[in-house]
């Protein structure tokens, strides 16, 4: 096939309005259209802007290499749009539809323009497909990355939320741990606990691990670190909620909590703590 200049730009320019209208129709008719998240006016504004940017970029004559500088405004716009959509709660599919639904209107106009020349039509459709697929893929990828960033941030927030330190009595703190205790989490837990020890001037801290599904050597090591740090601050730690299967696993692993007082249940730990603090509970 002879390498001819693509007529894509011609078609874009000639039918800009028609393509935009068809594209809008496609998007609104699509099952992935989220009327609840994006108004028709908002969608139209985004679509028109992207259309304009694509036309400007295509004028350079390059409609294949989207990493070239002339396509940067298009990519920037797509990145911003998919980021917003990720934050608004669109799915990957819904976000990718934005680009992929442009195919049908473009193909329709090409057919109208080149209908009699099958070879040219095939060639142009191929060029348009490759271009729109690249743009669609780029959109999906940025969306994915934004989602991951959001999830990571939510995880961090969750991390802090899920490590509450409760002052259960004057001088007694309870720290119910839920989930696993990796290094990042240990840091949060430890800081939280130490800060609370200081703030409440507590002398006893109960770390309850009922909600921890498995104690491997890292979790054990991190618990011991936390207990030692609390001890340096003058607080005595009790580890409670060691379920039978966890105790047995720990024995096989060979990990021990050393001289740390351990109790089977939180109730036992509390009883012990009250005793230590000289509190009689009737």
């Amino acid at each position, binding site marked *: 096939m002879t390498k001819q200049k693509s007529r894509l730009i011609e078609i874009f320019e000639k039918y800009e309005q028609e393509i935009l209208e068809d594209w809008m129709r496609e998007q609104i008719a699509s099952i992935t259209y989220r009327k609840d998240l994006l108004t028709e006016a908002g969608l139209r504004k985004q679509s028109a802007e992207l259309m304009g940017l694509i036309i400007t970029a295509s004028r350079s004559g390059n409609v294949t290499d989207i990493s070239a500088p002339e396509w940067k405004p298009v990519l920037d716009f797509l990145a911003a749009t998919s980021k917003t959509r990720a934050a608004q709660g669109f799915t990957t599919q819904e976000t990718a539809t934005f680009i992929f639904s442009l195919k049908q209107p473009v193909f329709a106009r090409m057919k109208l323009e080149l209908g009699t020349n099958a070879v040219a039509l095939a060639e142009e459709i191929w060029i348009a497909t490759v271009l729109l697929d690249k743009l669609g893929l780029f959109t999906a990828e940025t969306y994915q990355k934004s989602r991951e960033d959001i999830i990571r941030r939510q995880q961090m927030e969750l991390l802090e939320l899920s490590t509450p330190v409760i002052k259960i009595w004057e001088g007694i703190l309870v720290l119910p741990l839920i989930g*696993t205790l*990796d*290094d990042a989490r240990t840091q949060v837990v430890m800081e939280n606990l130490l800060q609370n020890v200081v703030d409440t001037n507590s002398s006893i801290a109960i770390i309850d691990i009922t909600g921890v*599904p*498995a*104690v*491997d*050597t*890292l979790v*054990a*090591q991190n618990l011991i670190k936390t207990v030692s740090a609390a001890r340096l601050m003058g607080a005595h730690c009790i580890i409670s909620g060691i379920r*039978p*299967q*966890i105790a*047995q*696993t720990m024995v*096989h*692993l*060979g*990990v021990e909590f050393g001289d740390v007082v351990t109790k089977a249940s939180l109730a036992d730990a509390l009883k012990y703590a009250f005793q230590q603090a000289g509190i009689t509970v009737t």
Partner: protein
Amino acid sequence: MSQKEPETIEIKISEDILRARQSVRTCMVDLGFSLIDQTKMVTAASELARNTIDYGKGGTMRIEYPAEEGRTGIRLIFLDHGPGIADIQQALKDGFTTGSGLGLGLGGSKRLVNDFEIRSEPDKGTQVTVTRWR
């Protein structure tokens, strides 16, 4: 009983350890293992997956369902192409670590499973296979 298909899970970042543990847990629940068996195997998986990342530069965990002599079980194969272990006997000793761990992961895992096999070649990588039978 439905036949379970083997699967391979990437072990590259610390979140993968969580995923690996969850997969092992789910499979063992499906196979009807007791809570204590689940906890032992999940803990061993956690140790070996962390070694794969910390020392093996990342790798994979394969879950298989061996059946022989009328018994069935679950088998985990941790594979990496990291630096390998020069002295396996030493690595298995309780308290031995070249990192900052407790040095109980390998020895402990061995005690938590029914069958334990380790193969390693310097500069080629490490493969640890653990099996628990029902």
